[in-house]
């Protein structure tokens, strides 16, 4: 069926809930309202209020209660309404979700998915445009997954729900309704921890994830070079092998992310590329990122958000080094 990302995510949630009675959804407005982006629409009617749980407005509570559920045999999918409010859940995610397996040497585990929309480019209010994935990606014990298309969203979310460890699942708000593509009706799984080579090429590798992928594609289509495009998909644990295979051939790499530059994932990727392939590199790894400022309100957002031109210029700098 042709689906946009909202529909694909909804389909994945529905299928997993059908399949496994231990899967429950909880969060603010996920039930009666069907989610502020309609991600969970129809699920309350289908599975009832005990499994599609409208919670009080409390992110630490949502994540903490979800962790408790996971400790006692459920597979909770907890929603943060926006990434900018998920910091309230960090104590629970860092100090418990990420650590319970190790703390108990595997006796208690946390098969939890913390879903949330992330990212700018939607002309939103303050705190509705964050892309602070590096906060999560640096925590040992958490996985961080970001889909870039409807099909990918279905496959990666299904895998995240079945994963035995806590997964932070970041959904690019900007891509929710951006495009439709064919998504299989039945079970569809993609492996976590595996990057996807979107397009092969020899001259330069361009890397990104989530809402950056369509932008990257547009930029890449406009340059002459033979570009290898990689969608990282899982930010942690990162599939650096696929990246290294690519840059060892191309000798040039551009990382694109909408998070601010400093301590963004781009730094880690660059560092690992040098560690693994410095002798192959013909130019510094180029980071095309947002600047180190607070995301401006809508009228100023263009000074912040990545655009095609910036990606093209990044590629050109790298090619011309």
């Amino acid at each position, binding site marked *: 069926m042709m689906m946009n990302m909202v529909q694909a995510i909804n389909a994945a949630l529905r299928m997993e809930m059908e399949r496994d009675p231990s899967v429950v959804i909880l969060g603010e407005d996920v039930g009666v309202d069907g989610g502020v982006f309609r991600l969970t629409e129809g699920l309350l009617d289908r599975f009832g209020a005990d499994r599609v749980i409208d919670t009080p407005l409390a992110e630490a509570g949502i994540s903490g209660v979800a962790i408790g559920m996971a400790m006692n045999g459920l597979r909770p999918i907890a929603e943060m309404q926006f990434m900018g409010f998920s910091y309230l859940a960090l104590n629970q995610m860092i100090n418990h979700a990420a650590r319970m397996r190790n703390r108990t040497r595997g006796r208690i585990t946390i098969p939890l998915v913390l879903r949330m929309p992330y990212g700018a480019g939607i002309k939103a209010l303050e*705190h509705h445009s964050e892309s602070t994935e590096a906060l999560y990606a640096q925590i040992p014990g958490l996985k961080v997954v970001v889909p870039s298309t409807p099909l990918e969203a279905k496959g990666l979310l299904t895998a995240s729900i079945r994963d035995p460890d806590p997964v932070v699942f970041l959904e690019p708000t900007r891509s929710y309704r951006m495009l439709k593509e064919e998504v299989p009706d039945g079970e569809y799984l993609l492996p976590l921890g595996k990057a996807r080579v979107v397009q092969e090429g020899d001259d330069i590798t361009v890397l990104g994830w989530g809402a950056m992928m369509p932008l990257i594609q547009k930029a890449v289509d406009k340059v002459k070079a033979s570009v290898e495009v990689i969608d990282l998909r899982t930010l942690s644990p990162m599939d650096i092998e696929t990246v290294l295979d690519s840059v060892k051939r191309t000798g040039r790499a551009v990382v694109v992310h909408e998070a601010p530059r400093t301590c963004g994932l781009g730094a880690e990727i660059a560092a690992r590329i040098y560690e693994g392939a410095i002798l192959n590199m013909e130019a510094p790894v180029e980071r095309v990122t947002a600047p180190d400022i607070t995301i401006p309100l809508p009228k100023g957002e263009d000074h912040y958000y990545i655009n095609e031109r910036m990606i093209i210029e990044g590629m050109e700098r790298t090619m011309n080094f």
Partner: protein
Amino acid sequence: MLTDEFDPLKGEMLCVMDEEGIVDRSLMPKLSNEMLIKAYRTMVLTRLADDKAVKLQRQGKLGAYPPSRGQEASQIGPAMALKEGDWLLWAFREMGGLLWKGIPLSTLYLFWMGNELGSVYPEGSNVTPSVVPVASQIPHAVGIAYASKLRKEKIVTLAYFGDGATSEGEFHEGLNFAGVFKTPNVFVCQNNQFAISTRRERQSASPTLAQKAVSYGFPGILVDGNDIFAMFAAAKEAVDRARKGKGPTLIESYTYRMGDHTTSDDWRKYRTKEEVETWQRKDPLSRFAKYLKAEGVLSDEGEIEKEMSKVIEEAVAAAEAVPAPTRKDVFEHTYAEMPPYLKWQMGPGGERQ
């Protein structure tokens, strides 16, 4: 003390004026005609400016906007109890309180248009900018009040927040600090029955929100939030208590959000037309108008509306005339001094990120 007379644990609610605008004289607070008219004008301005904002949003001129229709008394009543120099903290649905406090409407529109200059209020206004992360302004209110108290100023700090906010840890931590420090705070919880689609009953099993004050060792009171006199009276008492150094008060304003949560929302998903209509009858503005007319304080509503419409048109024009932020604008307030690396990111002409 109203807080002694009306015990939220018994479900008692302070109400001064009924739906027909008839007031209970024994509870009626003293208010000059001047004050009454100013309140009415602010209420009309709020109502019309709010409607206008929704329209502007539909025209693509504003971003998502949270209408405050139905909550005007709940907002303006408490603000009326403040003196100059007192602090006011808001979340995002309290236009009425801000207009009373003298924040220019054009500034508020500018904010909703998505320009940071919309959070630059007149010097000395002691109003804080909109806070979106629910409940997170509550600890600020306690810190602000603490500072006033430390300097022995006779300044009160009033903070608005919603029913949904009471579920957040920061509500709890903030009120608990206020109780321990006995800060001059007034906490106004606008219980408009919803946090987006989540009904008040789903938010907490506590029969009232006012009774949560029991946890913090200070008084709480449940008030008819569509009754401007009740809201003013409760707030006045609380403000006086705070100013006298007797500590904080929690006021639950029992009201209703007549419109959508924001312009991105559709209330039909989670409530019936009938329910909304019931509350229509309790409309704070028409109630107030009935009283004022009966008292002979108000004669020509139409005139005030016309005047306010003009104020609104001017505010829209003023806000629209403000240019979008430059690249320098969005970079230079990250720190007092721009670090070299950030300067490089800004670029000379902004062409390089």
